[in-house]
């Protein structure tokens, strides 16, 4: 609360900060909101959601233009009483209204949480976020002390985070980094359903490049920008979590079919890999992986238990996402300067693999089976054409980065991520064409069939 002429009143001797009160804002016990109108008449109501914004500010959900809303706009003050659901301590906060946001990262983050709260309260369809009303916290008072001892958390977040970061630092390739990250989260943080997505800007979608804890790997499954917690986290570049599942954010056949129907397309038109997620998740969290303020991925976790991811888990996974971005940038940048390419006539084999390319979305089918699409599909097509026409089987990232036909966005630094996706899809399909790393920023196509290439 720097810059204030008067420090906030935190009560007798105790230094209370919003950071210490965040469990009160998980929505487990409804908060009480008191406002007053210009004539001095009070109003009191429950408030569905108080959102921690930063150490000085909270946001309240504005859902209806009611008396509370009119009072806030006219007298610009409010007071709330919140309960810590773990200790049953009560706190009162005096608030001064600042502004309302009706779009953007904070709004989307609150909207997702509110959808979960509404679903849990049997109020789906009634609760709808119109705006995030942001208040500066003037004073915090503890009005009732804790009565229940705070439970010991099953995982001590900070030492567990340290172990996760330690394991991530051992990765030598990007694919290795993805796998180590998910494995370390599962082992040290006890979160066992995880995915990493990488964005494909050319088709406004994200592709799963690593997964942990699912029956089907789901590598290559697609989430559209803005769809569910993953798509909203990617679009808004903000952590999105939901504590009780809401159909508004569920990935499933119905949602997907609905989206395709909206676009006037039949499901059969849309080749892809099925989303491997839990059938009935209650908690989900998606964290943007940002490097130089650009989205380079999304780290996603889910659980069949409600309220699995609270502020502390969000903080911990946000640190992991930050480390993931930094390690990925370094691993991506490491490339060999030398580039001597092996060119030789293609060997003849007994079997022939037919690869078919559809230019509209760069999707590739092998013997009729979907393999990959988007930028990863374009890369694959370039590789196999070079192999068939010139006998080239060794490639460098640098060469691909400069290839105009790949339609890589000019700022795209996540070429390596797309190569990891392609390599993993080829492995999953057990095709007689595989990729093999032969040095930093270089790889070889290992081909064990004659290739027949078809366009469209």
């Amino acid at each position, binding site marked *: 609360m720097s810059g204030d002429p008067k420090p906030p009143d935190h009560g007798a001797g105790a230094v209370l900060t919003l950071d210490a009160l965040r469990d009160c804002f998980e929505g487990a016990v409804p908060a*009480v909101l008191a406002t007053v109108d210009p004539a001095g008449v*009070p109003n*009191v109501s429950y408030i569905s959601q108080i959102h921690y914004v930063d150490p000085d500010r909270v946001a309240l959900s504005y859902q*209806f233009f009611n008396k509370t809303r009119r009072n806030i706009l006219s007298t610009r003050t*409010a*007071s709330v009483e919140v309960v810590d659901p773990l200790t049953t301590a009560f706190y009162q906060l005096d608030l001064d209204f600042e502004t309302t946001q009706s779009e953007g990262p904070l709004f989307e983050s609150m909207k997702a949480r509110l959808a979960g709260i509404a679903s849990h309260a049997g*109020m789906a369809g009634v609760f709808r976020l119109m705006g995030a009303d942001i208040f500066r916290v003037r004073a915090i008072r503890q*009005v009732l002390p804790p009565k229940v001892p705070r439970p010991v958390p099953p995982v001590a977040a900070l030492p567990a985070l340290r172990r996760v970061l330690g394991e991530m630092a051992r990765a030598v390739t990007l694919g290795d980094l993805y796998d180590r990250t998910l494995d370390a989260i599962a082992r040290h943080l006890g979160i066992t359903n995880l995915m990493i997505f990488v964005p494909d800007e050319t088709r406004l979608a994200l592709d799963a490049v690593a997964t942990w804890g699912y029956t089907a790997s789901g590598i290559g499954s697609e989430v559209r920008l803005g769809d569910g917690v993953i798509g909203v986290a990617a679009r808004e570049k903000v952590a999105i979590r939901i504590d009780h599942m809401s159909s508004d954010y569920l990935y499933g056949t119905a949602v997907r079919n609905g989206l395709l129907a909206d676009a006037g397309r039949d499901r059969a038109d849309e080749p892809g890999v099925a989303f491997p997620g839990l059938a009935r998740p209650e908690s989900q969290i998606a964290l943007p992986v940002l490097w130089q303020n650009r989205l380079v991925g999304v780290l996603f976790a889910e659980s069949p238990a409600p309220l699995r991811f609270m502020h502390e888990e969000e903080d911990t996974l946000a640190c992991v996402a930050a480390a993931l971005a930094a390690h990925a940038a370094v691993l991506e940048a490491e490339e060999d300067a030398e580039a001597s390419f092996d060119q030789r006539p293609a060997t003849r084999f007994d079997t022939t693999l037919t690869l078919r390319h559809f230019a509209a979305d760069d999707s590739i089918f092998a013997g009729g089976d979907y393999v990959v699409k988007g930028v990863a599909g374009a890369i694959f097509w370039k590789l196999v054409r070079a192999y068939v026409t010139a006998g080239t089987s060794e490639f460098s990232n640098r060469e691909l980065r400069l290839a105009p036909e790949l339609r890589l966005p000019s700022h795209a630094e996540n070429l390596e991520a797309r190569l990891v996706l392609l390599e993993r899809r080829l492995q999953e399909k057990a095709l007689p064409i595989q990729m093999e790393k032969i040095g930093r920023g270089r790889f070889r196509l290992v081909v064990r069939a004659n290739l027949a290439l078809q366009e469209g």
Partner: protein
Amino acid sequence: MGHEKRPTAARDAFHLPDEIAGFIESGVSIILAVVGPDGRAKAGRALAARVVAGGAIRVIYPAEGNGAITAAVAAGGPIAVTFSAPMSHRTIQLKAMSSRAEAFEPEDRTGLDRQIDAFAAVLRAIGYGPAFVQSFCDNRSQSVFVLGFRPETAFEQTPGPGAGREL
């Protein structure tokens, strides 16, 4: 607040229908706001309410943790009290331009015990854990204060676009 002491109000008291009186005494959640001398509304929670002769409302609330409410009531501040049933979400808000401190009466104890038991059963039914429910029930042995007011307006507050309708 006995009937014979009824103050002359600029606006005559709102007549509370029996059905609403029954609702607010049935063991519901009770939250309140009283405007303090600083012009800010103070939020608080109460344990029980009674509708007495003449339509006045007595609100029984824990002394501990409600210092701001007690001070605002001592100054006669305007009051709003919201009664809400967690299962049905039915919510009623009563308002008055003044409030006052009242002495605890034997009937307050009966109402308090009955309403705490009824509301604890609701908390259990909607899934609050035993520790939380026990903590609520412990209020039975708390020191309590009583405030009184004569409702002037009543509002339907059940969540949704219809909330705020005057009854």
